[in-house]
């Protein structure tokens, strides 16, 4: 087990290092600096600005400076918002993104698993078909179609919740969380359904039933761990899906989270901010992939010995 943990952590670290190197040099290759959009500035001023952001140094020196900053958790200054550092901007946006992301995952896991189990236990009944339909809609209809439609219906027509923004406490969170959760509900319920059907066929489940254990207890005590293994394996990809979704959600619902900042930074070519958020996102995905692997290894010995 210790060797397994060590190997996974080492792999994760390597991937993270490669991510930092790739991102840095990709940003240096990108055409058009952050200042080319501004009105004409004199060469002296440009030289001053470049000196301030160390853009006049050789690339390897800039890279060394960036990595040194990264090691102490400093992502450098933003080039667009002159008075703020990338750390400030991320710190201001992250709470919103994390809140929405956390609740979306929680809702998706609960509803998805419940729908999947219901579908598996009542196969080919109305329950199963309803769960299946939710699944197909969640997978096929993109967030950026469902989101605006939900706004039009529940906020503009019915006026139950705010259209967007962050005013209004939990009511402002309802739509973003539900819309972000929907595609994940779809994936999780599909995964749970297939895996539950498979687990119910296992010999040990038949044994448990033959011994006269009640149905509820068989489901909760005997099949749940086996059923949830593939769902847990989805935790890593789900993080990536939530990040992807949050970029859209924050744009649609006007939430000042880091997803929105990332798109703005990309459009304005604010390279330090793009890099900072990329590394944060990449780090999160890698972290959750490693955690998922460890969790699976702990629950299922077969994974450890692959």
């Amino acid at each position, binding site marked *: 087990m210790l060797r397994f943990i060590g190997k996974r952590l080492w792999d994760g670290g390597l991937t993270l290092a490669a991510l930092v190197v790739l991102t840095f040099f990709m940003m240096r290759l990108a055409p058009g600096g952050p200042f080319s959009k501004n009105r004409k500035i004199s060469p002296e001023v440009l030289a001053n600005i470049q000196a301030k952001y160390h853009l006049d140094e050789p690339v390897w020196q800039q890279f060394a400076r960036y990595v040194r900053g990264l090691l102490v958790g400093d992502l450098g200054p933003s080039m667009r918002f002159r008075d703020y550092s990338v750390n400030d901007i991320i710190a201001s946006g992250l709470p919103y993104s994390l809140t929405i992301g956390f609740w979306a995952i929680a809702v998706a896991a609960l509803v998805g698993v419940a729908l999947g189990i219901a579908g598996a236990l009542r196969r080919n009944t109305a329950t199963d078909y309803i769960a299946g339909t939710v699944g197909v809609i969640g997978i096929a209809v993109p967030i*950026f*179609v469902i989101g605006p439609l939900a706004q039009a219906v529940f906020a503009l027509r019915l006026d139950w919740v705010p259209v967007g923004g962050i005013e209004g406490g939990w009511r402002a969170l309802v739509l973003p969380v539900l819309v972000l959760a929907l595609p994940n509900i779809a994936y999780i319920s599909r995964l749970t359904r297939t895996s539950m059907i498979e687990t119910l066929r296992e010999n040990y489940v038949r044994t448990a039933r033959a011994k006269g254990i009640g149905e509820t207890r068989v489901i909760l005590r005997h099949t749940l761990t086996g059923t949830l293994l593939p769902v847990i394996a989805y935790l890593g990809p789900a993080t990536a899906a939530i990040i992807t979704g949050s970029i859209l959600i924050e744009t649609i619902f006007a939430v000042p989270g880091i997803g929105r900042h990332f798109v703005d930074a990309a459009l304005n070519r604010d390279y330090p901010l793009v890099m900072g958020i990329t590394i944060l996102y990449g780090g999160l*995905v890698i972290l959750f992939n490693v955690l998922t692997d460890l969790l699976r290894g702990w629950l299922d010995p077969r994974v450890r010995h692959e």
Partner: protein
Amino acid sequence: MSDASLPSAAAPARGLSTLRLQFARFARNRLAMASVAVLMLIVLACFLGPFLFPFTGEDADFDYILAPIDFTSPHLFGTDDYGRDLLVRTLEGGRVSLTIGFLGALVAGVIGVLYGAVAGYAGGRTDGLMMRFVEILYGFPYVILVILLSLVLGGGNLALFAAIVFTLWLTPAVIVRAQAQSLARREFVEAARAGGMTGWQIVLTHIVPNCVSVVIVYGSLLVPEVILSESFLSFLGIGIKEPQASWGNLIQAGTAAMETDLRLLLLPGTMLATVLFCLNFIADGLRDAFDPNDR
């Protein structure tokens, strides 16, 4: 892929090939066949439809600005705030989205298959290195990579296309590699090697053709993914830009006008959702037909 399909792929002339049996099985799937029909209709409408109208999607008609749905006027589904015909714009946008979708899936599929086949056949250190590279790219959140790449490549349609292809060849590569690994140990590959074929010849004539059914199944899943990425980026303003229409930027424009007029959001949104529904059903049908063991 079942073992039975391997010898018949090597001798396709004999009777009903496995491939043909698999397509027959697919043809019995009603939902999938209906999806194929609907998809064909939409493709035809997008590629031929705009020619039926005397104006293009970029012509502004100042007598009809923000016209509502009216089947008696020249603009069947009304116009947008510049007086451009919504239906024609949606069809032209569909042309862009569908072209990028199918071409992108094709290119990503070809790159992925070749990469995976070479890695799987070569094995050893080459395989390790090649797969390490794939793993690192997998570490990037997919959307972030697309956005970074389209920035690096300088924007524009070609950059968008390249960025999407570059992020989507990974999955077919991984799948084909696993297939190629097991194929590389089979007798007919050994016989080919003994007969003096070079590595490249073996990869192209023995490994790749035997991966066909896996590739068809996963390739069909690539198409909706490419279409989704394109419209996703266009929605954010990073992909295809005005005045050229794509489903993504039409939906974006529709969101902006949503408070007064849902029509601008609904038409392109419904088209996109319908195409994605169809493609998902087709992919499911292909998987059931080609991979009966895998539910």
